[in-house]
């Protein structure tokens, strides 16, 4: 039961309210001014709403009718058709027949979450509301218990992230290639929705191309001619054409402690051999694409085949080498070095350790010098190779694939068979038979005729990676099942779903074996596996994919704050913001903490750059660590995260509406309907005075067409106005102090982030349900329907009963009806 304090009104409106109400009624009713509400609504009833009494409990039925009469039918009748809907379209007795569930679920949500009746209308008493919603919920839940409906997702294709993780796990190949596959369309907030994952010939071409590359790389047949791989050190571009910034700190965990600047990236060496690492350094020109030959530094290294981190960096200095003087030239300030360049050491770093170094001048002045003299830094790192290949190498992928090596030509087919059996089982997520291996061996045989053993194996791997058995999650309807009936999916199908959910990848051998033996869904086993999978680093996928979309973290990469308004927004801040939210999310999941920490945690994960951004100056270093907030830190919970505050803003100003809408949609599952198109622009000045956000929003309330939705959204967003468009704390906007006192439609007052946290905590069950909905959508790969709502309620309830711990929510999903069953297709 929702515990929001309500502005109590009498259940019957005072006479003063009547004329307003009456003026909206059809003319023939207005004459009845003297009637009480009941008779008025009876009149309306007579003309529009027809109820039939349910079979039993007529007394309860009549109190339900009275409830609907009193509080709903005034607007939701055939004449007024408020919200395009009339009570005459539904009948309480329908629930028992499973009809109009969508409508009744909506009615339940609206009434129990106090969305309806609207604030200015007569409100039911607590008791009345409890009785009505109690009846409604138990009817809906009761129907669902008697006639469970698991729904059905269409044949589900692996999306881009899942495909690339599956390849990584199948071939033990640490090679990033997901960027070579097109992005998938999303719906219901996620890009793993089965219905939307289609196959086009464009995609098929990409699969062939990518599968070819990774299969050859994994087998050790990558390019033998030198190939150039280029890595741009992320810089964020030049600020105001002043050259590309560089920072006096360690830029990657793959670079040595005590290093500064430069960058590192993952490189996959196709063979053992020589490789040339080279880097372009910055000159302080004002053109960031300049890669000048005189700034190129090279070194040859020996690399073993496989994945490495390759980087270049300088050494951190207490006193910087350059000393600059500043000259004034009209309005430009030009810092120019006062001394000739000194010599600096540039390290070449492979797998975290320096393997060589070069001496470079501490600056390079170009004739087109920029206005700011940045520290010497690396702009781009190239790796070229292999030169003089010495062997295919001993890589994790070769070891995984070649579980045998044929000694003679005659032993090849047997070895091939063995290899393919193991790979196919893993790739197809089920035991395989000669029916599966036969066709694969045919491909092997055809290729083996004019190529060697390893090439043939690589080609079969390519075939597996584009085959439907790998790409699609095949779930069969039992042959004798009736259309529209439900059936339990088998353990193997369950394992595939579970590993897509928690790892966005294939089930591993342990999971597969348990599923084969039909043990996976035994309660103790399932619990143990859940814990194991969440603690495995593969569950980072949950953070990247679920949280990345739920919290809009993926948008951070594309979000462009205005450089004029925020000249300090740099690539380090962008990356740190994201990392904070990722660590926060994965921490709660792995510690099995309460989901309410998403709302009001008093800690987060910071590094120096982010801490500086938050105004906390006792955090040093580039590493992230957990930080407990002091009461005056003005942070805490998701809504204090710079990431969320940034992606819900525009490039140069905050958006009360975007933030309010995000909260309603993603934390409370109560999204407002879309705005009408012809919205006049926000008035930003009035009478010569600049308006701040609060004043602009006030204009929303003046127009009733806008007010109905905005009274819900605006207060939430307004309470966050002290966080600017990149999430920094501020006290002043448009020249005046910011006031973050807000009022909800029901009259509740609250202020700032703390107040907002309280408001959300008071709706903690609604939040728990909202999070369950998000997670369940992601887990099922389909949008939720009315028949899923009882499941959502049940999971949220059990989570709440277990102190709101998040793994309880996971377990609830894993043991739920839709996750374990599937509806057979109707004819």
């Amino acid at each position: 039961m929702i515990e929001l304090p309500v502005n109590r009104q009498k259940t019957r409106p005072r006479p003063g309210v009547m004329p307003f109400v009456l003026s909206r009624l059809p003319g023939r009713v207005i004459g009845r001014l003297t009637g009480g509400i009941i008779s008025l609504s009876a009149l309306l009833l007579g003309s529009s709403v027809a109820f039939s009494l349910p079979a039993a409990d007529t007394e309860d039925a009549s109190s339900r009718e009275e409830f609907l009469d009193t509080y709903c039918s005034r607007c939701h009748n055939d004449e007024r058709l408020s919200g395009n809907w009339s009570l005459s379209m539904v009948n309480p007795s329908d629930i028992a027949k499973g009809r109009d569930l969508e409508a009744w679920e909506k009615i339940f949500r609206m009434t129990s979450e106090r969305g309806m009746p609207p604030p200015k209308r007569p409100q039911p008493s607590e008791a009345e509301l409890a009785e009505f919603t109690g009846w409604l919920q138990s009817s809906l839940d009761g129907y669902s218990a008697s006639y469970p409906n698991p729904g059905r997702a269409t044949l589900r294709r692996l999306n881009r992230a899942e495909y690339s993780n599956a390849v990584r796990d199948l071939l033990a190949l640490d090679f990033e290639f997901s960027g070579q596959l097109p992005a998938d369309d999303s719906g219901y907030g996620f890009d793993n929705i089965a219905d939307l994952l289609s196959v086009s010939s464009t995609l098929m071409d990409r699969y062939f191309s990518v599968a070819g590359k990774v299969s050859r790389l994994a087998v050790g047949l990558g390019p033998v001619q030198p190939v150039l791989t280029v890595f741009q050190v992320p810089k964020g571009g030049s600020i105001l054409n002043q050259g590309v910034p560089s920072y006096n700190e360690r830029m990657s965990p793959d670079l040595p402690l005590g290093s500064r600047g430069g960058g590192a990236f993952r490189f996959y060496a196709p063979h053992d051999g020589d490789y040339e690492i080279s880097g372009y350094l910055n000159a302080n020109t004002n053109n960031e694409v300049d890669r000048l030959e005189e700034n190129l530094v090279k070194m040859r290294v020996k690399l073993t085949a496989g994945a490495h981190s390759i980087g270049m960096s300088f050494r951190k200095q207490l006193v910087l080498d350059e000393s600059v003087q500043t000259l004034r030239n009209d309005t430009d300030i030009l810092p120019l070095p006062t001394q000739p360049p000194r010599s600096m050491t540039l390290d070449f770093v492979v797998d975290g350790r320096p393997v060589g170094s070069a001496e470079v001048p501490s600056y390079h002045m170009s004739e087109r010098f920029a206005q700011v003299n940045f520290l010497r830094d690396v702009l781009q790192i190239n790796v070229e190779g292999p030169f003089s290949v010495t062997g295919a190498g001993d890589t994790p992928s070769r070891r995984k694939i070649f579980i045998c090596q044929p000694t003679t030509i005659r032993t090849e087919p047997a070895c091939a068979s063995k290899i393919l059996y193991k790979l196919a089982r893993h790739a197809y997520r089920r035991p395989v038979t000669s029916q599966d291996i036969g066709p694969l061996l045919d491909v092997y045989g055809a290729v083996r005729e004019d190529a060697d053993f390893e090439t043939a194996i690589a080609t079969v791997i390519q075939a597996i990676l584009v085959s439907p058995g790998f790409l699609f999650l095949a779930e069969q309807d039992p042959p004798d099942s009736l259309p529209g009936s439900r059936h339990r999916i088998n353990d193997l199908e369950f394992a595939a779903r579970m590993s897509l959910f928690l790892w966005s990848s294939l089930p591993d051998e342990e999971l597969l074996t348990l599923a084969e033996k039909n043990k996976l869904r035994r309660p103790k086993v399932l619990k143990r596996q859940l814990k194991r999978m969440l603690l495995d680093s593969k569950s980072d996928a949950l953070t990247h994919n679920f949280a990345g979309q739920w919290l809009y973290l993926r948008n951070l990469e594309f979000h462009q704050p205005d450089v004029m308004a925020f000249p300090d927004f740099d690539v380090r801040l962008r990356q740190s913001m994201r990392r904070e939210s990722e660590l926060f999310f994965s921490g709660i999941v792995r510690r099995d903490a309460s989901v309410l920490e998403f709302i009001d945690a008093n800690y987060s994960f910071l590094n120096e750059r982010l801490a500086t951004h938050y105004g906390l100056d006792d955090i040093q270093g580039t590493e992230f660590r957990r930080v407990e907030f002091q009461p005056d830190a003005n942070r805490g919970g998701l809504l204090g995260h710079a990431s969320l505050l940034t992606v819900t803003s525009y490039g140069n100003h905050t958006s009360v509406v975007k933030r309010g809408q995000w909260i309603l949609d993603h934390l409370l599952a109560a999204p407002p309907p879309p705005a009408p198109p012809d919205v006049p622009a926000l008035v930003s000045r009035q009478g010569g005075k600049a308006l701040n956000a609060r004043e602009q929003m006030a204009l929303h309330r003046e127009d009733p067409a806008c007010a109905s939705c905005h009274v819900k959204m605006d207060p939430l967003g307004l309470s966050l106005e002290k966080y600017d468009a990149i999430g920094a704390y501020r006290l002043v906007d448009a020249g005046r102090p910011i006031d973050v006192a807000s009022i909800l439609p029901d009259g509740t007052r609250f202020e700032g982030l703390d107040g907002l946290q309280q408001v959300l905590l008071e709706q903690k069950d609604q939040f728990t349900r909202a999070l369950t909905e998000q997670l369940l959508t992601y887990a099922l790969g389909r949008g939720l329907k009315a028949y899923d709502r009882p499941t959502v309620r049940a999971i949220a309830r059990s989570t709440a009963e277990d102190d709101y711990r998040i793994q309880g929510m996971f377990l609830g999903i894993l043991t739920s009806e839709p996750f374990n069953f599937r509806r057979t297709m109707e004819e």
Partner: protein
Amino acid sequence: MKHPLSLSRRTVLRGLGTAMALPLMEAMVPSAAFGATFDSVSKPSRLSVFYMPNGMRMDNFTPARSGRDYPLSPTLEPLAAMKDKFSVITGLSHNNANALGDPGGAHGRSCAAFLTGAHAKPTEGSDLYCGISMDQVIANQLGKETLFPSLELGLEPSSLLGSCDIGFSCTYTNTISWKSPTQALPVMVNPRDVFERLFGDSAGLDENSRQLQMRRKTSILDFVRQDAIRMARQLGANDQRKMDEYLQSVREVERRIQKLANQETNLDTGNLILPSGIPDTFEDHLQLMVDLQVLAMQTDTTRVCTFMLGRELSNRAYTEIGVPDSHHSLSHHGGNAEKIEKLHKINRYHLKQFAYLLERMDATRDGEGTLLDNTLVFAGASLGEPNKHDCMDLPAIVAGGGLLGNRHIALPQHTPMSNLMLSMIQAMGVESEQFGDSTGTVPELSS
């Protein structure tokens, strides 16, 4: 102006490692290399569509006067040099992009209606429904002759969350090409991927290796086809549809291999350097994609190409022209003069890019004339005035194809855009009496 081999601005993409230098001196790769001959005297033989997102401010787009030698409107000024090669058409509308009783989602509907004239079904799920698009009608006929029936290109990946139209799956705003009412065609945004797709990873291989590679691919295709047929038998009807999509795509790949095998000569891609990725700046990215399109047409790899300058509901900021605000946000200007001014800038900037496309095609020899002479080019947006999601007064520019230029054809208000689509279909030599919600054709087009 002939474009030099080393497009010096673009080879500066050595910042990205390698450049896409288009080496195609006309002598090196004449389209006759593929044995293709066109009856380029009478009909345009290619189609190119250029799509601009988030509508067009019609007050700045519509020229003051109609007829020949009309004065260029402010938005059209960037096209001044090519005035003889294109016509502006106004008075067009897509009635099916209106709500017609459906809730929200103007952008989803308008983008879906742009080349289809169909009323899109509002859904986020499996029951996507629109209509076949004009380019696919043409591709169904022209595409039989080429390796790729059509090419769908874009600049924006579809990954921004919360930025698709409410109630409409992102599919509706990510693409303008529909192969069938239920099958949308995704766009490719990475030049490297486009290049690889067009010219295959057989670039640089000798004949023997190429044949070997094709044989292997064929074995794989046989295998996956059998696998799919076997799987399909055990699936429910709805799932079978998905498997059908898969099979269809496999057949496409097979068909292409067949064509390649039947070709006598191979395109010498030795001089083409693989682009290494997506260029940093918008303009570079766009122009590289245009260059790829021109390359594809020159080599007769495809004859139908659609290009989305941005996805519908694009939020891109154009800082390079002094507009740091997000495009979609500006398009709902609410009458604010400053926002309108910025929006005008964006519209002009987009048309400047269109000018590049026209100039490139005009500078490329094709048989007896230029590529532009032989290509029917259509540029437009799916909304007119974006502030009110107006789909009843739409901008349209038709260029090339040997059609008369330097005209502003002001059609009667609310002429169905589908009529123009139908005219274009017929101009491409595809027999058709009806398209989308057409009520006739636009005869002025070919007069």
